[in-house]
């Protein structure tokens, strides 16, 4: 069992492990809604849209995560604003804002010469570079987002499943929709150091999609998704340590392996089960 403990003797590994577990949990829970509301494209777009925020924060000498946070929330609310009343379709609005923000980010970054190393950390993540202050921020975001998801479980449930019903129950549908976008933005910002903006969409979508294959109710789906997200983070980080590969990639690959197993072998919804069922008929 020493191989389990050995990596954790380093402080940076301990911090990395805590960060990875928190982010795996956070992404997986919020990701349930991303999967059910078909917001995968939005999640990916938001992740890329934080680049200008990071660049501006760097130029101004501020905290990069705070810059990312502001950019993500602005873009999330911008998408909500442009699609209000159906003037512009959501995927169109996402496409426009996402490319615009990415272009702005690249333009700003191209003006900074020494930025290449930091940039690659933002795109691919660097879980071993998580400092104590970053860890506090990630923990704070996790508590905030998860508490909101739990307290507003029923409103989010109804709004996601049946917005018309939500309206007849006089729920603030628009407010809840925007709040979910903000939660998504916070989640992405919390994740960039572990998996990076290039791979955060996978952490949002893959555990949720796997859990969807294994249950037929929302609350268990969330729980299974969370467990899978945490497991993928822990296993991925050990793989990254022993195989000497990038941690973000290792985590995402483990999550993908879970998904493939569920896709083929899940009871009822799995490929094998459906094959057998068809033959029996």
């Amino acid at each position, binding site marked *: 069992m020493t191989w389990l403990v050995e990596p954790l003797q380093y402080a940076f590994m301990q911090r990395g492990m805590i960060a990875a577990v928190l982010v795996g949990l956070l992404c997986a829970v919020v990701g349930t809604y991303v999967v*059910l509301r078909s917001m995968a494209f939005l999640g990916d777009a938001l992740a890329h849209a934080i680049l200008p925020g990071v660049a501006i924060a760097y130029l101004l000498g501020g905290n990069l995560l705070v810059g990312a946070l502001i950019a993500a929330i602005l873009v999330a609310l911008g998408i909500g604003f442009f699609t209000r*009343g*159906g003037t512009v379709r959501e995927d169109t609005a996402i496409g426009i804002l996402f490319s615009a923000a990415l272009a702005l980010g690249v333009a700003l970054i191209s003006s900074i010469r020494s930025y290449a190393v930091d940039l690659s950390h933002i795109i691919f993540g660097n879980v071993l570079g998580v400092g104590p202050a970053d860890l506090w921020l990630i923990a704070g975001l996790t508590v905030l987002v998860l508490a909101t998801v739990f*307290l*507003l479980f*029923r*409103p989010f*449930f*109804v709004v*996601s*499943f*049946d*917005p*018309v*019903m939500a*309206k*007849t*129950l*006089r729920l603030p549908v628009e407010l809840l929709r925007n709040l979910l976008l903000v939660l998504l933005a916070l989640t992405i910002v919390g994740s960039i150091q572990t998996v990076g903006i290039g791979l955060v969409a996978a952490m949002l979508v893959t555990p949720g999609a796997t859990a*969807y294959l294994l*249950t*037929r*109710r*929302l609350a268990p*789906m969330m729980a299974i998704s969370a467990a899978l997200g945490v497991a993928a983070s822990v296993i991925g980080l050990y793989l990254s340590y022993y195989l000497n590969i990038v941690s973000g990639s290792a985590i995402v690959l483990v999550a993908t392996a879970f998904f493939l197993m569920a896709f083929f072998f899940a009871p009822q919804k799995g490929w094998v089960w459906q094959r057998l069922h068809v033959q029996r008929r």
Partner: protein
Amino acid sequence: MKIRAHELIGTEPARLDLENVVVAFNGHAILDNVSFEVPHGAQVAVVGPNGAGKTTLFKALVGLLPLRRGQIRIHGLPLGQHKDCVAYIPQREEVDWRFPVTVEEVVMMGRFNDFGWLGKPSPQDREAVLRSMAQLGITKLARRSIGELSGGQQQRVFLARAVAQEPHILLMDEPFTGVDVSTQEATLDLLDELRSRGVTVMVSTHDLNMAAERFERILLLKRRLIAYGTREQVFTREHIAAAFGKQALILDNIVVVDHCCPGDEHDHIHTEETP
């Protein structure tokens, strides 16, 4: 605190009151200057050709679509400020049937406003859910996920949810389309029971016979209000011709109406604008 339906009967202005309502979508008026009143406990069939704005009318009534002009009042109060509970049963195409939710959970949604967003369902809430499921004959399906059900069963789930809501006003969009005969019967039985409870009901349907036979009031719509009243008042030659145009063949005393593809109103809006 919820006000029960029977406490209000006879003491209030008309339950539902529309005044010069205009609803527009992408700049085109889908409902144009619609005014009518529905008294307490009345059951109204809403009929009209495809693209007449039946679904739009219902969505405006629950506040889902903004009004360009005009007013909707419930018990004399503007939409959103009244105390009445409005339940809406959407067309089946509008529901995401892949959502991971069981029959029981859907019906329990009807009680969310009673036990609050954080509270636990009380024994009365559970009982109301069980009663509604029993009434619609879906008790055995309680733990099934809604995606596994047949069309008729799915409809009964949403009817049961509406019953559990104990609404004062119930809007049903095309409940007779694409379901089996026993579900149609269950729906009609439910309407009879709601009548005895004084619940105001509006039902959109393509079935003009059903409308004429089972509803005391009929509202004929083709983006504007063509006629509203008893079947004798509404189903006249002039009104049918005005609403259905070339889709209606009028022989001596017989009217034949050709309906295609119910349920896709929005697809038909544009074709109808260029006659």
